[in-house]
């Protein structure tokens, strides 16, 4: 059966030149769903380690990296064969990570350990461990590669680290339970989502101060159900997308005015997001409805829901 499905996947892929493939971690199923974005359906499910959450791909798109949190490791999956070909010494309970813009190293947040582990990916070696706040979560690397940002969920800060020295340059207090850090492509701002604070803090990465705070309102919903998590910027930085968790909406924000211009209804407990490389689609993982929503970025509408495994958490789209 596995081979039959795999064969189908191979047969389909070459016929559609524009087809992208998305990979979704299913936290509850210990699997990664492989989604063909041409067919708009799940074409294969890969068994991985326990409690898979953070997911990314190497710069060349040849390998998929998955945080298997409860196995205290990061698994390396060969994107061509979908076989697990090795693992990285992530330190305990890896939740999320970010690759340096140059493609190496990898910065991992160790949620149980108040540490960031820096890993040389090709060598599969730990380069350093850096102490940070309580329950480190979001990781981001600035577009110029000089600044690493980490959020800590119980300390409620965004920690700014210098790439060269691996030392703390600043810690900026934000609202409760900061989850995701995301730089604009031009590097001028870093946005931090606070899940329980219900806000997004906009931080000047040079002055290390919060310059704007974005709040959300959804008619008919209580403030406490609005819990911002995933953040993504359009290629030209003009628009930001923020996943609002149990509010089941993605907020579309004008980055000049910091105003929410539209709310898109997606699946339940929307968590992380990823663009297709052509920026045509934005994918969202919906933890409680076990699917991903496909947002058409051009006309800001939800065009499709694709079923994946249980409790989908993270998503990455192959650059190929």
């Amino acid at each position, binding site marked *: 059966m596995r081979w039959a499905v795999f064969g189908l996947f191979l047969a389909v892929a070459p016929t559609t030149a524009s087809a992208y493939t998305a990979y979704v971690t299913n936290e509850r199923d210990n699997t990664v769903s492989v989604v063909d974005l041409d067919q708009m359906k799940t074409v294969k499910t890969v068994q991985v380690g326990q409690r898979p959450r953070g997911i990314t791909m190497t710069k060349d798109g040849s390998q998929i990296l998955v945080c298997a949190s409860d196995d205290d490791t990061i698994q390396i999956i060969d994107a061509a064969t979908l076989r697990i070909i090795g693992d990285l010494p992530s330190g305990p309970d890896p939740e999320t990570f970010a690759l340096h813009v140059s493609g190496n190293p990898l910065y991992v947040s160790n949620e149980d350990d108040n540490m960031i582990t820096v890993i040389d990916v090709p060598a599969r070696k730990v380069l350093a461990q850096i102490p940070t706040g309580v329950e480190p979560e979001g990781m981001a690397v600035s577009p110029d590669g000089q600044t690493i940002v980490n959020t800590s969920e119980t*300390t409620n800060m965004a920690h700014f680290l210098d790439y060269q020295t691996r030392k703390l340059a600043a810690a900026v207090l934000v609202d409760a339970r900061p989850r995701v850090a995301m730089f604009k492509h031009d590097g001028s701002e870093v946005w931090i989502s606070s899940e329980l604070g219900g806000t997004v803090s906009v931080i000047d990465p040079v002055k290390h101060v919060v310059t704007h705070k974005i709040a959300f309102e959804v008619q008919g919903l209580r403030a406490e159900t609005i819990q911002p998590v995933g953040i993504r910027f359009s290629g030209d930085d003009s628009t930001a997308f923020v996943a609002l968790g149990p509010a089941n909406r993605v907020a579309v924000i004008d980055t000049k005015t910091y105003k929410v211009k539209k709310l898109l209804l997606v699946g339940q407990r929307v968590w992380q997001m990823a663009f297709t490389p052509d920026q045509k689609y934005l994918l969202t993982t919906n933890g409680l409805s076990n699917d991903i929503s496909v947002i058409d970025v051009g006309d800001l509408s939800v065009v499709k829901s694709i079923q994946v495994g249980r409790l989908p958490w993270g998503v990455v789209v192959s650059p190929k």
Partner: protein
Amino acid sequence: MKRPASVSRDRFGRRALAATAIGAAIGGALRRAQADPVVVRVGYLRWLDSRQTISLLDKPPPDNGVAGARLAMNDNDTTGRFMNQAFELSDAPVHPDDDPGAILNSLAGQGTKLVLTDLPADRLLKLADAAQPDQLVLFNIAAPDDALRQEDCRNNVIHVAPSRAMLADALAQYLVWKKWSRWVLVYGSHPQDTLLSAAYRRAAKRFGARIVQEREFKDTGGARQTDSGVVQTQQQMPVFTQGLPDYDVLVTADENGVFADYLPYRTWDARPVVGSAGLRPASWDPTSESWGGTQLQDRFVRVAHRRMTPLDMQAWTACRMIGEAASRTASSDSAKIMQDIKSAGFGVAAYKGQKLSLRNWDWQLRQPILLSDGRTVVSISPQPGFLHQVTELDTLGFDRPETKCKLQ
């Protein structure tokens, strides 16, 4: 339990860390951290009264509560490294023969003005009244008495522990959602059981359940765990629950652990047991994994070498409230910290899926209540469908319009 001779002080972090690479990396990067850290002092008045339990598993560990406080102070101290703040916990054991007022005064003399207490309601109230002139603030992490939130409320007492009414309401909502609305209420003969059964009667009325009959179980004394007691219990409990009108669920009010744990599987009719045994409402459960709870459970087990109890969680939450306010205000001044904790925008994250905040009419912490069978979390109240104009959390316990509290 052996009683420590005097107040012991746990110093978290600063001095020990300063020499390590961790401290150097952070201290070197942050200019402010080069100065001596500002110390935020928190006390813990720890009640040393032992009690019997039916199950060996329920025996309170010697560091029950204080282990949660220690973990929170550790967490605060990690954050404090970035704020140039250090957190110091003074653990002050209180024997039933001791004068808690004198111990509180000695804490105050050392500059500790924010004090957690797990003392019973009567002692807490006396302390609160004695403490007022000195601007001491007490964090009630154990006493569930509704009177402390109602007619006996005090402006210098923050209630982190849920009240009996909150616990009863949380269970009642679930039972009504389950359509188990015909209850038999069995209560013990201790004063706390009288108060708890009153909370269940109120909850039944509020949420549309019916108490079809009540029975009292008298505490006749004697040991609870005896190696041949099982035979008697097996005969006693079916007879005790014989001849009841048709009902859905047996609700037990037994705060002293006298009889409730003997009821599951031994009732005359095959009915579930809830309340003080079976499905129980609590602020925390050692198995709660939702909303990042796994991280807290892992951290706790690593430092305490045991599972985290509701009292540990209540102590953790109280210390985190103080830590959160200390970093928001960048201050160790107890007046500033309390002003922030009591302000409208204050909230603390405690692995319950939403921020917890204080009710400004009685200083009770709003919180979801877990319902656990001792193995897993069965449900979490408030239940869907129980609506409220401000926050669904205020469907648990005494709401603003019902309050008899006059804060001064």
